[in-house]
């Protein structure tokens, strides 16, 4: 291969690599083009937040959390709606971000271990009339993670506790498949 052609090939490859990196950054932080594609092919109904457990189950936390104290402090903050969860053993801290309700759920199981969950349910009903909804598919994942992180930062917790909760934030896509057999 002659030097001029080799140089052109190198520039092309570098261009491809830079473009891929830019596309990934845009997708994560600015505009989710993967969400646009997946919604176009029926693979995305809405985006929501969850914890790394299957079927909407909560995750067990390793540290102790004083749920009544969290509830009493958060009730003084007007940005939040505080509800009891599971017959008074738990707490749902909710906040609206651009019409989407983010819920952070903490509750103590029968072994005394605190469990943690996340969702975007709105029992008052979304504009679609449904309880289950979330962000548009094109919303970048980072925006959803940041909203939950803001809620966690406002909770009266130690840095270690906040860090544990933040490690369990996951963005998930609800699939909209209409299969007819």
């Amino acid at each position, binding site marked *: 291969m002659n030097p001029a052609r080799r140089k052109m090939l190198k520039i092309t490859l570098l261009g491809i690599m830079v473009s891929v990196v830019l596309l990934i950054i845009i997708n994560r932080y600015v505009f989710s083009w*993967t969400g646009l594609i997946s919604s176009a092919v029926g693979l995305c109904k809405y985006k929501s937040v969850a914890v790394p457990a299957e079927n909407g189950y909560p995750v067990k936390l390793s540290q102790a959390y004083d749920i009544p104290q969290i509830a009493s402090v958060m009730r003084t903050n007007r940005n939040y709606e505080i509800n009891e969860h599971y017959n008074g053993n738990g707490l749902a801290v909710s906040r609206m971000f651009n019409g989407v309700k983010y819920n952070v759920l903490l509750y103590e199981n029968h072994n005394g271990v605190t469990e943690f969950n996340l969702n975007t349910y709105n029992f008052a009903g979304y504009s679609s009339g449904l309880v289950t909804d979330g962000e548009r598919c094109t919303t970048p994942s980072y925006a959803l993670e940041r909203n939950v992180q803001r809620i966690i930062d406002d909770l009266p917790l130690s840095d270690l506790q906040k860090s544990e909760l933040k490690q369990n934030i996951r963005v998930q896509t609800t699939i909209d498949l209409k299969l007819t057999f």
Partner: protein
Amino acid sequence: MTSSTWLLDLFVNHVWLAIGLWAVLYCLDFIFTMTSARLYRDGAGRHFAFSEGIELNPIFREDVARIRLVSVRFLLFLFLVSALLFILYELTIAEIFTLVWGMLVGSQLANHCRHLRNLVVFFYARRSAGVSGRIQYEHWFSLRLSAADFFCFGGLFLILFLFCGNLFVLGAGLGCFPLALRHLIDSIRKHKD
């Protein structure tokens, strides 16, 4: 009780671990291939002759024939597939990510089994230990043997999937079949020529 899929959950929930594992397997694939090429050059070639070299993938044939320590093609593939995995993770549909990751890791695991076997054969053949005489492999025959191996691995993974119903194992099975088919088609074409 710990979940039976805790290891899979660990990788699926930590994208960098998942990409890292695939990258390590891919790099090992390159290292094993180059080590085989070196053993072949240093004496194993006295017993085994491959008409078009030991590499079956035409994209890397030149790099392997020259035993290059650094291959631009290899680095490009490493980067592009890692990026593809990250983009799939960003789709935030865990099932799709698990399936594709299974395809990539499963086909690499099958590949490594073949590599390890070849390394053992070449290691002894280099010193003529336990091996005598000379076998000439035509390229179409090497491709056909590889196709048979990948069909076997694909079938094995699919049977395992029927037992455990895990998307990762299904992906591993589905990942082996395209490789097997490609080698089979290349083998038929080569045999006709």
